[in-house]
């Protein structure tokens, strides 16, 4: 962090003349006391108090020229089954019904649902695998559209994580820590790299659930939260139905001009308040009002799909116009990326097949396969894969062995499996058409080039031009980074 930025609190203090200070003292010690209570460690990008501050930063970032300028993260909540979708293991069918070797499971944690289950028969993949594209990537027939773009994807088959339950594992992926409270990746990036969107937020989150709502996951707001970073860097959540952003329209009788004047006056008041107290939350308030004003114009244009040709809409599948569907969020992600939005986080819940593997997994794939693949194709034909990174993956994988009773085929399931899973990346700076890393014959543990969640995060940062070890933020007396004290850039997948 460069020295030349004045600490906001020091900046604030410098504004206090001696006379003003005594004047205030005479009014009461309130101001001084309050000021000292404000967390002094908060550091701003630059231009304290300026609403345009988000256009520039003085953090010395990016450290080196980025390959990716923006990210679209298709987060698959609930953990897609790697052994049924991407990690083809012929051994599973050979062992079907037999107890998985104790050597693999001994001492491993599973969720409480199979933690006590003594019978752990292997079950073969419920789908059929084939190799696709020139790269010969293995993709199951549940993902026919993804298979068609396999040559544009980089599969990482040796992911592993720490946590065995959804919320901590998702929090770990998105913030680098299992407990809530740290900034999410999108917040780090928008804080560090500044804005490239003219009239939209830099960090947008959208969520979708499967039609049957078969999966009980909740989308916690802190999945796109800013943690201890100034709150203006938190993701703006677009709603999944109706207006994506509430109160976009001015009330009856209020013209846009009137609104502008009101905001100007309010800003002046807020600025005065900020001068007095130096509370960074006031800054957030100012910039959020300003962003809302811009979004009154930009969001209706953004969400108007009438300018999309039919063949493009068709690619995304039948749900593309249904607000709150994964397909709608995918095309919206492309439109946001086109408008310069730095980080778009599309989270889709519905992958948690504990007891309904045989019918639910395929439905999940049908809902998400075409939109994900369409997004890749669409970005590619527009030349946007040049500098847009697309990530597809869940928080962990699923067990190669059965949860439930093998005779009760209807209720087959797979439990949470943090020890190995697959995710894919595509676009800016990532080698297309490769599979990186490998798991053992059961898809149980990585045996080649294991990639930890922190490694993934370090690589993502690297693609954005950031050395993850040097990008820190001081909070409560300690410098924090996304990758904590871990993480190695996976150089082998960089193009």
């Amino acid at each position, binding site marked *: 962090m460069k020295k030349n930025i004045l600490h906001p609190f020091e900046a604030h203090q410098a504004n206090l003349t001696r006379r003003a200070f005594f004047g205030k003292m005479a009014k009461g010690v309130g101001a001084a006391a309050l000021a000292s209570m404000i967390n002094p460690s908060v550091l701003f990008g630059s231009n304290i108090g300026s609403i345009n501050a988000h256009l520039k930063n003085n953090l010395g970032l990016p450290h080196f*020229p980025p390959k990716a300028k923006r990210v679209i993260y298709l987060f698959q909540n609930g953990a897609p089954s790697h052994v049924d979708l991407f990690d083809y293991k012929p051994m599973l069918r050979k062992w079907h019904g037999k107890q998985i070797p104790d050597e693999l499971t001994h001492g491993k944690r599973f969720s409480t649902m199979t933690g006590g289950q003594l019978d752990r028969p292997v079950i073969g993949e419920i789908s059929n695998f084939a190799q696709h594209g020139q790269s010969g990537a293995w993709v199951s027939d549940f993902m026919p559209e993804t298979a068609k773009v396999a040559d544009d994807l980089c599969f990482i088959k040796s992911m592993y994580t720490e946590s065995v339950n959804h919320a901590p594992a998702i929090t770990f992926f998105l913030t680098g820590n299992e407990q809530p409270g740290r900034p999410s990746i999108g917040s780090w990036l928008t804080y560090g790299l500044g804005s490239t969107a003219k009239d939209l937020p830099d960090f947008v989150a959208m969520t979708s659930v499967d039609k049957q709502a078969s999966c009980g996951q909740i989308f916690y707001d802190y999945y796109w939260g800013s943690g201890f970073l100034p709150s203006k860097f938190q993701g703006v959540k677009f709603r999944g139905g109706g207006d994506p952003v509430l109160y976009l329209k001015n009330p009856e009788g209020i013209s846009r001009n009137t609104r502008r004047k009101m905001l100007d006056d309010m800003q002046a008041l807020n600025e005065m308040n900020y001068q007095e107290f130096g509370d960074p939350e006031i800054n957030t308030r100012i910039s959020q009002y300003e962003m809302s004003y811009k979004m009154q114009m930009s969001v209706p244009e953004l969400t108007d799909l009438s300018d999309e040709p039919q063949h493009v809409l068709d690619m995304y599948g039948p749900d593309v116009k249904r607000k709150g569907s994964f397909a709608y969020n995918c095309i919206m992600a492309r439109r946001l990326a086109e408008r310069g939005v730095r980080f778009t986080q599309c989270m889709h819940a519905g992958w948690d097949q504990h007891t309904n593997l045989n019918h639910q997994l395929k439905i999940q794939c049908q809902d998400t396969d075409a939109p994900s693949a369409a997004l890749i194709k669409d970005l590619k034909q527009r030349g946007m894969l040049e500098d847009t990174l697309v990530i597809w993956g869940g928080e962990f994988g699923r067990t190669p062995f059965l949860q439930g009773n093998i005779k009760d085929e209807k209720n087959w399931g797979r439990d949470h499996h943090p020890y190995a899973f697959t995710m894919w990346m595509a676009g800016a700076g990532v080698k297309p058409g490769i599979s990186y890393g490998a798991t053992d014959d059961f898809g149980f543990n990585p045996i080649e080039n294991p990639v930890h969640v922190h490694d993934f995060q370090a690589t993502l940062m690297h693609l954005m031009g950031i050395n993850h070890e040097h990008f820190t933020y001081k909070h409560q007396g300690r410098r924090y980074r996304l990758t904590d004290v871990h993480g190695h850039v996976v150089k082998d997948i960089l193009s």
Partner: protein
Amino acid sequence: MGEVSDIVIFLGRFHPLIVHLPIGFLLLAGIMEILSSAYKIKYASLNTAISISMLCGALGAVASAIIGYMLSKQGGYESNTLFWHQWLGILLAVLSFLGWAIKSGKINIPFISSKTIIILLIVLISITGHLGGNLTHGSDYLTAYAPEFLKGDEEKSNFKIPSNPDSIVVFKHLIQPILNNKCISCHNDTKSNGGLNLTNTDKVNDGGDNGMVITPFQPYNSELFLRSTFPESSKKFMPPKGTALTFTELKLLEWWIAEGASFDGRLLSYKFPKELKNLFERDFKLNTKKRPYYETVKSPKLDEQIVLELSEQGWLVNPLSAEHHMLDVKFFDNEITLSAFETLEKAKEQITWLDISKSGLTDDLLKRLSAFKNLTYLNIHKSNITDEGVKHIETLAHLEVLNLYNTEITDKSIIVFAKLPSLKRVYLWNTKITKKAIEELYKENPNLKIISN
């Protein structure tokens, strides 16, 4: 050289230990001499101590000289340095006896005081000691990690590998230095153990008494490589003293021989395994990847004032990174104006990534873009451009990515893409370019990626 008995070498190897005794004694004598001259009365008593110290030093010097000579029988030392080290050492021993004799009043030589002798001794100790150090550790040991300004020019040119991988000759820059460091102290013009001389290419080819030491393409039939990989306890292990070849050096040697042991092959003309690539990066800080253009170009930093002007005119201007001042520029407004473009022209040297899409760029302005020589990425999709404008950008010699989707260009522009020498990817979705023209373009440039309908 006849076989030397083990006991001689065993004793000889105590030389580096014993040698520090006379050094200590003689330096102590020097210190006491200074003290006693500076404070004549206070330290008068030191005079006896000085002569004792010098006697001890003299005896130690003789002992060191004797076992040093034994050590030299082990062989393998650079003969020139050894000569000087040996004779200066002997001289040192003689001189210290002389110094002792004068100091204790046993003899008296006109004009030569014990002080003169002591000064001379200390100078001699420094020189002889340094030569001894060079003998064991090699002459570059002391300066290998010295700051740049302390190293002589000559040393720089000897040990620096060209930073640009293009100019690296495998033998000259990577293999010969290994031989220089690890082999030539015993295999040189004056001393060629086993009849082998590794100081230059011709001599390497001549091999040794038992024939060739390198069999091209067969590292495991090449003595040069093979004997460096023996267990250190083996009598045939090379080098017999000093540090063994490092992992990187062995890998390099093995690879160089496997690739044919050419003496003039250039690094980048070979394919090398990933392992070696990583070693290059780790040990030589050598990035064998082609450097991106923005790292090779040298343009002056753009004036802050112009950056401000650009921002006011609707351009989003960002340096590629905090370290690079080449610029990434995007048009942020709806419609580009002539004045906005003219401001942009002030930064034509610095801009390497440029996005003027969806802003009504015209052929006239596109024509003027041909002066932006450092462009590597140009995105002008959805603009009002035609073949007429596109033909002017054929001068952009470093352009790697060109995005023209959603424009009215036709097959006529294909010729331009074929001419752009650095072009890697061109985006032609939703243009009037036909399949046939794209096939032709593929024929012209099979490495070009064409993304179209």
